[in-house]
């Protein structure tokens, strides 16, 4: 190895080393700060302290943690199940039953990808208010079930689905919905896995729409609770840290267990 190559490698290591450190530091900060008092956290103390038990105790005293956690899980699971079923049906339908009319409809569906949520939230809020769904979890889920992004993802992935399987199933006398349920879904399980992760994470982290719709403490999700703890007049950041850990753990866990599917789902949009 020559000298210039060695220097080049050293610079590259330094570059990605700094980037990796800066990327990971806030996670370390979150864990360290959960053991410190609010005063220490705002004073920049970056070493472990002894306030962890007190912070956890305060968190559970201020927040009905099991309920909040359950609300988040409930909303995310509902959103994931419904979005995946409805949107994968459409992705399959658009690709398997091509017609000029349906391709036009598909272009319109893709066009909705451009619509910013800010332009929807006022009418959506008025609709939910009219139908008495304010402060309900179903109101969070409903607008996202038919997701243009997931429909697109399934349609793209369906292009790789072997048509012979479908033809053989038809010869065996299976109906279209049976083909979808018994042939398509099992064959496409990796596509499903990736889509499930993407939708679950997105709805777990969802903030603006729940902020508008959920108004009572009984329905609030973990992101809303973390946000309101941190925007109190004098926030107790020790307590806030416990909240951010709870809000981050499930997504971190999914990421580490299913990193491959996660990345696959993310890249699905450009393939």
């Amino acid at each position, binding site marked *: 190895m020559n000298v210039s190559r060695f220097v080049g490698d050293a610079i*590259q290591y330094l570059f*990605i*080393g700094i*980037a*990796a450190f*800066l*990327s*990971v530091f806030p*996670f370390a*900060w*979150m864990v360290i*700060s959960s053991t410190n008092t609010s005063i220490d*956290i705002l*004073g*920049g*103390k*970056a070493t472990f302290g002894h306030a962890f038990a007190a912070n956890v105790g305060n968190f559970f005293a201020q927040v009905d943690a099991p309920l909040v956690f359950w609300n988040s899980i409930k909303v995310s699971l509902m959103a994931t199940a419904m979005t995946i079923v409805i*949107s994968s*049906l*459409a992705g*399959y*339908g*658009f690709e398997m*039953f091509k017609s000029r009319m*349906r391709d036009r*409809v598909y272009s*319109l*569906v893709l066009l*909705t990808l451009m*619509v*910013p*949520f*800010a*332009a929807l*939230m*006022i*009418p*959506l*809020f008025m609709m939910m208010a009219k139908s008495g769904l304010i402060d309900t979890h179903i109101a969070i889920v409903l607008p996202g*079930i*038919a997701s243009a992004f997931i*429909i697109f993802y399934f349609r793209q992935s369906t292009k790789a689905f072997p048509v012979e399987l479908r033809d053989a199933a038809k010869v065996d006398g299976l109906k*279209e919905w049976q083909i979808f349920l018994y042939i398509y879904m099992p064959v496409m399980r990796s596509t499903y896995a990736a889509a499930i992760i993407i939708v679950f994470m997105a709805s777990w*982290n969802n*903030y603006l729409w729940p902020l*508008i719709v959920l108004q009572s403490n009984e329905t609030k999700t973990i*992101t809303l609770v*973390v*946000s309101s703890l941190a*925007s109190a007049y004098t926030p107790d950041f020790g307590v*806030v*840290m416990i909240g*951010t850990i709870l*809000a981050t753990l499930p997504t*971190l866990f999914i990421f580490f267990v299913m*990193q491959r599917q*996660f990345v696959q789902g*993310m*890249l699905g949009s*450009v393939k």
Partner: protein
Amino acid sequence: MTTARANGLKRSYDINGWLFIAPSVALIAIYLVYPIFRSLYLSFYSGKGMMMKFAGFGNIVRLWNDPVFISALTNTVVFFVVQVPIMITLALMLASVLNNDRLKFIGLFRTAIFLPCVTSLVAYSVLFKSMFAADGVVNAALLAVGLIAAPIGWLTEPFWAKVLVILSITWRWTGYNMIFYLAAMQNIDRSVYEAARIDGVPAWARFTRLTVPMLKPVILFTTITSTIGTLQLFDEVYNLTEGKGGPSDATLTLSLYIYNLTFRYMPSFGYAATISYVIVLMVALLSFLQFYAARDRS
């Protein structure tokens, strides 16, 4: 096969086709198509709460005389004009380093740099708020290494508050964009690089003359999606500034202003809807540019 049977098959094909997409199409019609037109309709009305009257283009006139709107618009534009190029450049540089097989522990570095994009926008904004406190860990570190002489008022000075927002979004999304570039780089034929290297093309030139041009489609895609994302910036500024977009509106974005107009103050649905159409127009313009550029390429 008789004609009747062929017709029957064609009809069942068509019926099935519609049945599979019907639920999605219905939901999109109700929760996307209807609201977007309803917003347009509302934008011609003004008034507080549910008491609304037709205002014609009154809301558009109001826009140009509303200093808060002007600063929200300026801030939003500043955020994407400054932040997107910084992030895209950083992501490209990181991806090209991580694409270097000779380096060790690449997987570890890649995972670390990708990690920020699994956090919720609220959680990391709150973390950043605590890290960038006046006496917080960031100021302490900068003071310790002598980069600054006095603590920076990240959350209290308008200029630095903007910088903080830009730093935050960059932290959250650089790794995300990097993964797109890495995936694209892995599709590039290695021999191209080998040939350039043997011809004595220096590393930097290989990056700007080879990598960047070959990644143009992905760079375009990520630039447009990042810009559209930044146009809708809300969670970060809301949680860094207790929903105010302060100090003195320095971090107020269009989405935050719409939210405040609708849900914080006495609701002005019509005026807020008008502002939301400013975002719609900007997104439409950018998407059109992307489409145009993509067509130009092929």
